[in-house]
């Protein structure tokens, strides 16, 4: 067992876990944050995506020990003071979420995308979300949600 400490959604956390335990399982089982989903478990679907030090990563491919000292943001940390983040609000209003399994990963991938490209082209949106699979929407409503979120410029000044 290893003691692993990180900053999770703004709060310092410390867990005692097997060092090779997947960060995904640490989040879901040890910390009871079940917003992060498991899809393929192989890094191909993006359902388990979180932000690590501000960068999008697949938590199913990260051994717990490598989270030591990092700053993590999961879907639970995206909203503030009980209010949905504008990206979440856009997914809600535009039908970007259906069954919901891919949605946390899609939101975090959008977060990183808009950090890098505040006004993304369709090509940039498609590449930014290229590692996230959705089996419900056919993607068009997700792309529209991202465009809407970009139009609201939610990350301005952050």
């Amino acid at each position, binding site marked *: 067992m290893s003691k692993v400490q990180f900053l999770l959604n703004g709060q310092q956390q410390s867990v005692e876990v097997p060092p*090779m335990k997947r960060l995904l399982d640490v989040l879901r089982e040890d910390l009871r944050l079940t917003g992060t989903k498991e899809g393929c478990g192989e890094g191909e679907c993006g359902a388990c*995506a979180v932000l690590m030090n501000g960068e999008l*990563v697949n938590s199913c*491919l*990260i051994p717990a020990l490598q989270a030591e000292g990092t700053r993590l943001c999961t879907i639970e940390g995206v909203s503030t003071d009980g209010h949905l983040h504008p990206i979440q609000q856009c997914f809600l209003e535009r039908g970007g979420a259906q069954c919901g399994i891919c949605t946390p990963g899609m939101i975090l991938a959008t977060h990183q995308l808009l950090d890098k490209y505040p006004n993304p082209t369709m090509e940039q949106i498609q590449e930014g979300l290229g590692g996230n699979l959705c089996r419900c929407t056919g993607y068009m409503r997700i792309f529209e949600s991202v465009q809407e979120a970009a139009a609201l410029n939610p990350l301005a000044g952050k």
Partner: protein
Amino acid sequence: MRSDVTEYELSAPATLQEMLSLLAAEPGKYTPIAGGTELMVALGVGRLQSRSLLSLQHFQELRFLREEDGHVVIGANTTFTDLRRSALIAEHLPLLAQSASWTGAIANQNRGTLGGNIVNASPAADNPPVLLVYGASITLISASGMRTLDYNDFHLGYKKTQLRADELVHSVRIPLAYQGYRQYIRKVGTRNALAISKIALAGIARTEGTRIAEIRLGAASLTDRPIRCLAAEKALTGASLAADSLEATLQAGRAALAMEAKPIDDIRSTARYRSAVAENLLEEFLRSLAE
């Protein structure tokens, strides 16, 4: 079946020297892990053989990208995102910027490293063909020092390389010598993001008038390892791209490539498809040179 994670040990040595000492003390005991985009997949499906792993992901001294004496030197811990963000790579080594951009999707590129892609040594790996055509050298580090090899000599067979059990990749070094070369790369897979190549071909060439003065070709999934296509290069060096000889040049290139292609049938494709498409990619590159 998923592995039981409690059967695995992982530690993060405080320093690179400490890690190299551990590797030297018991060669073969430990498997180094960087971004985890390969080994954690193996863990997930119960195929991770080694029970003892050492993380090297935190060694910032292996994560660098700098210009040095007309070369670019890239540390093993450099991620694909780092490569894509480098203006130096974009300007001088566009094929590497391209191969990095299709090594998995963004979340994989934020974690996966160039060193990891090299030592995993998959015949389908995205970046080795580019390193081969760019004439890279590779520097390996161990407790007993560093050694540098021509990257052409690094891959020995299916997932076999020159890397000893007590060594890590330190860096790769690529000459910034390809201004004026025509450059080509194409990957054929089932999906843009994340697909593993069925076949990929990278090439650079210098023409003098309508003659091919120099050509280098590198391929993924054409044999049991990433290769330079030396037979095709030989057949094409000095060949004419003039309208009345182009067809003969294309045929000579295709025939030579067919001779050295030894692809396999697997879940992603068939040997026949791979050979045929590799020849088509070569033809596409050659036709672009003739334009």
